[in-house]
């Protein structure tokens, strides 16, 4: 028995026994610590990391066609891509389409193929309908007889590209790129290109919102930081108040305020400042106003926390050494607030990147950010591959910016309070 063996060893060497006991108790402490973190860790793993990972994986995997049309996928894996595939590949496609039609699974494969080439969907279904009974001719002649598209190399190239298991189709599409007939990567046709433009716009709007928040939030935080505690906490309460109102309510309130026959326009009209209503909604102006309003507290709070910690004596010392107020502010006060500026900007910018509801409700068609398109593909057209690829773009942009920030400012210098 191991127990008695340990006991005899302990009798032989008391120092080793002590070491072991120590190790045991350390291990127990570690286990306790792990047990405290474990529930949250498991929760995050099960409810956050795993589903998001699975969702993002859809942007780079392509399993539908290989699963539903396995024989032809295997055959095309051996095809050199020159001329047309051999007779065996045609025969494999016929067997696959028949099986898929009878199993009722042809739709998912056809939907995926139609993403790449418009018309592939009905090609698949028309072929499925025509393949009844014994074949009267060899497989290739039969298929080309059903639709001449089966005699075009591009039809087969597209089928091969959809064979998975991994694909760059969605990621390329999210960057306005595609494979051409020669399988080279080329830019999408000008009238089909949208996502680079949208990604640029997303970054631009987020940057503008961040700047506006900084310009509006800095003086407010500066003012609050210099008030006596009672008034400061009242003012902070006012800053926080919007946090306790739903985002949707705040956004819709802006619609009511800014619309054509809304409160603001009626006021301007009745004061005689304008002769006809100004257009203030469904444009970029409304997006900036509503997003700055929602995100401003995320700028004010870190700024206030940092400013509160700056002893007033520093600026007084600068003044007593002859610095004018502007110089003292610029050279002594401002540099000390930079960690708060960095934290506020990063929080506002990264949150703004993912904004969806606010631009959707108050913006126009050319003010929609990348999240709008993610939602469009996820829920409207149910093209999850495209939604995932755009999400990967958004995540990559966020991480890249974080890395740039870390390089320039240093995350360890960031202070939230």
């Amino acid at each position: 028995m191991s127990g008695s063996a340990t006991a005899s060893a302990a009798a032989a060497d008391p120092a080793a026994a002590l070491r072991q006991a120590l190790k045991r108790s350390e291990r127990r402490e570690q286990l306790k610590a792990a047990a405290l973190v474990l529930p949250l860790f498991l929760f995050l793993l099960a409810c956050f990391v795993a589903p998001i990972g699975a969702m993002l994986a859809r942007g780079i995997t392509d399993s539908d066609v290989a699963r539903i049309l396995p024989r032809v996928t295997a055959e095309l894996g051996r095809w050199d891509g020159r001329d047309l595939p051999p007779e065996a590949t045609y025969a494999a496609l016929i067997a696959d389409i028949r099986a898929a039609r009878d199993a009722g699974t042809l739709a998912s494969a056809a939907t995926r193929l139609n993403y790449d080439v418009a018309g592939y969907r009905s090609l698949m279904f028309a072929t499925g309908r025509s393949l009844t009974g014994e074949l009267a001719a060899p497989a290739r002649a039969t298929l080309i007889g059903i639709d001449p598209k089966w005699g075009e190399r591009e039809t087969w190239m597209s089928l091969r590209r959809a064979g998975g298991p991994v694909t760059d189709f969605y990621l390329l599409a999210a960057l306005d790129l595609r494979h051409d007939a020669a399988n080279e990567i080329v830019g999408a046709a000008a009238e089909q290109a949208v996502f680079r433009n949208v990604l640029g716009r997303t970054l631009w709007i987020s940057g503008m919102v961040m700047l506006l928040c900084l310009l509006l939030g800095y003086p407010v935080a500066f003012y609050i930081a210099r008030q006596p505690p009672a008034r400061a906490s009242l003012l902070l309460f006012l800053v926080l108040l919007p946090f306790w109102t739903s985002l949707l309510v705040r956004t819709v309130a802006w619609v009511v305020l800014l619309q054509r026959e809304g409160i603001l326009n009626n006021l301007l009209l009745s004061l005689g400042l304008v002769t006809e209503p100004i257009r203030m909604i469904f444009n970029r102006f409304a997006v900036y106003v509503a997003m700055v309003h929602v995100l401003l507290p995320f700028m004010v709070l870190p700024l206030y926390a940092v400013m509160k910690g700056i002893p007033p004596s520093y600026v007084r010392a600068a003044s007593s050494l002859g610095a004018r107020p502007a110089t003292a502010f610029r050279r002594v006060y401002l540099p000390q607030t930079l960690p708060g500026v960095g934290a506020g900007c990063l929080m506002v910018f990264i949150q703004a990147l993912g904004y969806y509801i606010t631009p959707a409700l108050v913006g126009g068609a050319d003010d929609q950010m990348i999240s709008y398109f993610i939602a469009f593909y996820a829920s409207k057209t149910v093209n999850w591959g495209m939604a995932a690829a755009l999400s990967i773009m958004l995540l990559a942009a966020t991480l890249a910016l974080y890395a740039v920030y870390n390089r320039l400012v240093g995350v360890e210098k960031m202070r939230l309070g």
Partner: protein
Amino acid sequence: MMRSPSLRTGLLAAAALLLSAGAAARDLTVVSWGGAYQDAQREVYFKPFMAAGTKMAEESWDGGVGTLRAKIQGGNNNWDVVQVESDELLLGCEEGLFEKLDWAKLGGKDKYLADAVNDCGVGAIVYSFVLAYDGDKIKTDPPKSWADFFNLQKYPGKRALRKGPKTTLEIALLADGVAPQDVYKTLATPAGVDRAFAKLDQIKGSVVWWEKGAQPPQLLASGEVVMTDAYNGRIAAANDKDKKNFKIVWNNNLYTIDSWVIMKGTPNKADAEKYLVFVNDPQNQKNLPPKIPYGVTAKAATPLIDKNVLPNLATAPQNMAGALYINDKFWLENLDKLNQRFNAWVAK
């Protein structure tokens, strides 16, 4: 441990009994779109049908071919007759989710509007995308066509259109002078698509895009836009409930049809067919439009409809003339590419 055979057999027998009892006990289940529409159907179809001697239950759904796919592929389908939109009809029929209809039992295909006849479905209601404006705001020389919708000089101000290529591209071509019967032929060519977008370019800066059917009447009421495209039922409802004076231009309206289908493999097929015969009787169909302004599909029903109601329906002869049937087959093929192009265009 093995359960004693007698217990196991007993349990199985009980389960089988329950299952078969459940299947046999299920009444004909009819599924529609809920709300005011299903309220009207209940009065006009469900109650009289039950009074005529067949038990039935009703349910509501929100559409989506995925729901029907799950019912059939999951193997425990509990729906018999479902009202579907035209794209669900097309997809579901292609995928074998519905029974093929026996048209002889339904009185032959000639009894119905041509677009209401499908292998798997028979049309239930006809409704339209129309041009609408506020009659209190445009009093003199009102718009009469989609060409007027694109005329910014004559009718200055914003207009609203449904966000997305479907219906929008058709409207652009109609406004550009393409005859209804040539719209999809034109749209099937790259030059035709370019032509539609070029037409839309003319008003791009003046368009407010809507996404939910409730928005167009709101946009008209708030004065945000001078004209909009809209579902005719929504405009009629706004006039009816909110006492608005919205006007509809029926010229070149775009119409679509919701259909009844029978779910594949239903045990209540005979009752389902009996139900379809009942709701397609012109004497029964004529009672629906007075309750809700949707057209019905039996040719003989339209002349029987109340003369005050008829002009509000997509199926009124004067409204049908020059109307365009929205071609779901075209959109099923081309929606991916045209969505992308539309998104690219609208975002520029």
